[in-house]
């Protein structure tokens, strides 16, 4: 799980072009949206594509995203339970 969390942080930084952010800056339980990393709705779309492309996970219900993307911790748990690749 720890390895997956690190990988997800790297992928998020890369996909969202977070130039000034390093893996060490993102804490596992920090909120990704709003006050934490400050991501927005366009970033949410990018993350949905990331899950599909890298882990074979299709989010059928966009409302799921709110819980799944709340932190690296929740995202990693969801990926581990649902990944197909």
């Amino acid at each position, binding site marked *: 799980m720890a390895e997956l969390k690190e990988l997800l942080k790297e992928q998020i930084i890369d*996909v*969202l*072009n*977070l*130039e*000034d952010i390093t893996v060490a800056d993102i804490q596992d339980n920090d909120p990704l949206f709003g006050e934490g990393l*400050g991501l927005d709705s*366009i970033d949410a*779309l*990018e993350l949905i*594509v990331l899950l*599909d*492309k890298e882990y074979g996970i299709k989010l059928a219900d966009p409302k799921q995203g709110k819980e799944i993307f709340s932190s690296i911790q929740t995202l990693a748990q969801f990926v581990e339970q649902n990944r197909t690749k």
Partner: protein
Amino acid sequence: MKNCYINGIGTIGIQHPDYKLLEQEPQALFARNQAQHPVYKELIPAASLRRMATGVKMGCYAAQLALQEAQQPALDAIICGTGQGCLQDSEKFLTAMIAQDEEYLTPTSFIQSTHNTVAAQIALQLQCHAYNFTYVQGGSSFESALFDGLNQLNYSNAQHILVGGVDEHAPQFDDLYTLAGNYKAEDEAVDFKNPTQGGVAQGEGANFFLLSQEQQANSYAQLLDVWLFNQPQRSIATEIMQFLSLNNLQSKDIDVLMLGYNADASQQAYFDAMAACFPETAIAYYQHISGSYDTASAYGLAAAAQVLKAQQFPAHLSYNSIKPNRLKTILLINQSRGTDYSFVLLTAC
């Protein structure tokens, strides 16, 4: 007719961001030239910056420079010209579409790939809900925007208008244009005065202007007229004389003729025909400083405005051996491969 003053200028291009046109020789030009970038974070929020391709960054930054210089007036319009639009994001999106078999397409590059992205991003940064328009008219894209800006000031209640031009490199498009002979190949020599090979020395950049009805103490110049047409109906000489006549001028009244000479042997005759109409006039050029792109003529306007404001005509702008007797009136003429002609007339404040 109301007056139209240039009260602020912002330029980003292939010269160093701190380059001073009137004080420094420009860096040598090559066949392909990339923009030298400032620290964009100084003027653009990091959260917005991370989604911007080169052209959007250059445009937003240059617009902010122009606004700062003009003391940040409330804008009545944001008008942009671009020959090719946001090509980098267009290529990024299309490449992903092909590489990933039309799956996993992310939204950012698609959203930012439209031609009006720069004008829209400037409006978003400024929270400006005023008139917002982007002209895509090949080699006269910038002049189309300028023409609109001048008309907005003349025929509406607009007081302050931001007008600019932006174009950026994009690898695949550049390769296609090189194959077509429009751009020089990377190892080709660049000679602006006696070109022997076709193709232009490619550049990129963003140049923005704050146009205002009010003259300020630091105004650069007064914009008198803008005219554009696809091709001369009879001859370029006739078009020039008609334009001068409409402005109650003769060729001898033009102190500097600024032409878009672009080191392309196949286009040299078009500019030589313009120069022949002004045999006793100082002729200036600027694309050896900016490189060539569809809206490079906006850099020409920036150069002309700086010359008029400072009343200095640096030797590196001079194309012929004639020195201007005074620096009151400058006429800029441009064309692109025999079409997209434009005249821009400026006078000192």
